[in-house]
């Protein structure tokens, strides 16, 4: 059973200011749920850059190699056909399919990597902490360990101007 605390801010400026205070007190904020991207939030939270770009590159490279390799195999080994006297292994005519497969694989690998990593997709359990985080509220999530004292953390949050501090449990 995991315990965690949620609290919210009504304004992005307050959020950034408050987060810096909370961080300075040594409290680790796991995530911030916000209705729109807040500039500078990633830096304050100390989030690492997404690795999605590497997934995309790898997926794209695999797609390109597969696309090219498959055509090369089909048109030289499996089913060679003579198109207008051109050589069987004619690279320019393979390019469109190679390109399309690179794009397709890059896109799919990104979508699936995103869904798997975030445990999203059909049948995923949704947790809505606050109805208004899609509207005008910025919600902090702080995960608690066994030896953390919830009260001291709540004090820190209140001091930093956060509202609606609640302790929650998740099975």
């Amino acid at each position: 059973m995991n315990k965690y605390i949620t609290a919210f801010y009504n304004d992005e400026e307050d959020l950034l200011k408050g987060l810096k205070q909370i961080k300075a007190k040594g409290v680790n904020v796991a995530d911030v749920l916000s209705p729109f991207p807040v500039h500078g939030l990633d830096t304050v939270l100390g989030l690492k850059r997404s690795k999605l770009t590497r997934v995309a590159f790898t997926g794209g490279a695999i797609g390109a190699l597969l696309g090219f390799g498959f055509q090369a195999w089909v048109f030289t080994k499996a089913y060679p056909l003579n198109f207008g006297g051109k050589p069987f292994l004619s690279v320019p005519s393979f390019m469109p399919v190679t390109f399309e497969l690179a794009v397709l694989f890059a896109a799919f690998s990104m979508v699936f990597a995103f869904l798997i990593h975030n445990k999203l997709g059909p049948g995923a359990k949704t947790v809505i902490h606050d109805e208004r985080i899609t509207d005008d509220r910025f919600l902090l999530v702080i995960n608690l360990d066994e030896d953390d004292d919830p009260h001291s953390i709540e004090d820190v949050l209140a001091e930093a101007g956060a509202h609606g501090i609640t302790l929650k449990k998740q099975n």
Partner: protein
Amino acid sequence: MDNLTFKLDKKLITIFLVMIAVGLLSLVIGYFTGAGGNRIAANLLLNNYYFLSMGLIGLFFVAVHTIAESGWQTSMQRVGEAMSAFIPVGGLLLVLFFILGGLHAIYPWTHEDHLDEILLKKVAYLNVPFFYIRLVVFLGAWSLLAHFLRKASLALDVNGDMQYLKKMRTLSAVFVVVFAVTSVVSSWDWLMSLDPHWFSTLYGWYVFSSMLASGFAMIILVVSLLKNMGYMTHVNDEHMHDLGKYLFGFSIFWAYLWFSQYMLIWYANMPEETVYFIERHKYFTEVFYVNLFLNFVVPFLLLMTRRAKRVSGVLVPVAIIVFIGHWVDLYMMIMPGAVGGEHAGIGIVEVGLTIGYLGLFGLVTFWSLAKAPLASKKHPYYKESMEYHTNY
């Protein structure tokens, strides 16, 4: 020291003047070592067109962002404007070049007594008087629009009167429409008609994409040079990142158009079209592949990551490579038609004239930069430009 007031110091002027002198000297050397009139004329055309297109992309850069009301480019708007100061200079040189024999030397359709059946059918368009009319109309329209846009931009800087921004917007919209047509038609006139039998519908856009990629490479180089000299400290990694994205994106766009043109001709295999690539591949095999390598492979692989676009140690070398690459691309467009495979080459004339034109372009651009503050502080988007932040 205020780092927004650019002073053109003697050292920089000397460097540019020496470069121009190198260009003139190489012209003389080329003439006396028998490089051939065609080759000299083709090189003059190449460099004139190349640096004229840099000026045009400078203007295009300002115009497009003014219409789109984008904030970030306000920080480097002056660089685009300064580059556009080369349009009248390059235009005048181009007119002189055509009048002083360049036209007759390398354009086969001007030899009116020796026109074959195909060229006779094209006489309604490809004839000398109409060519000059188009030339003057294009260069006149570009120069005037560049002049008035610059004037409105300077007027805006006096007290931030919004009427001048509206005027800039109108002028920009007119320029973008005019440029959409004239960039294509001028590429038929000045480049494609060197091989007057051959034609390609895609050619105009292909040339335009080449102009865009090399133009953005030049903007990156000018901004980096200014930053290196201690000016324009307000242009930070975020702005360079966006310029890098332009360079990256338009290099891919160029490759896309290059390949589209190549593959259709290769696949259809019609003699009147394939002759273009056969000559290029037969006599310029290395240049043919180097062109693709410099303009697509290098920027595509090196500029892919976020870091590469933000670190000047990567961005500037890539911009230099792309700058050279699109010179090579123009070389591939011009030389086979104008000089022919047996006589073309890369020697003193090619390198020297490019250095000369680069010096002239640099002199005009930096001279224009010195005439106004490097940032338009009264521009309504100036503050937005300073607080610009980009994630990806």
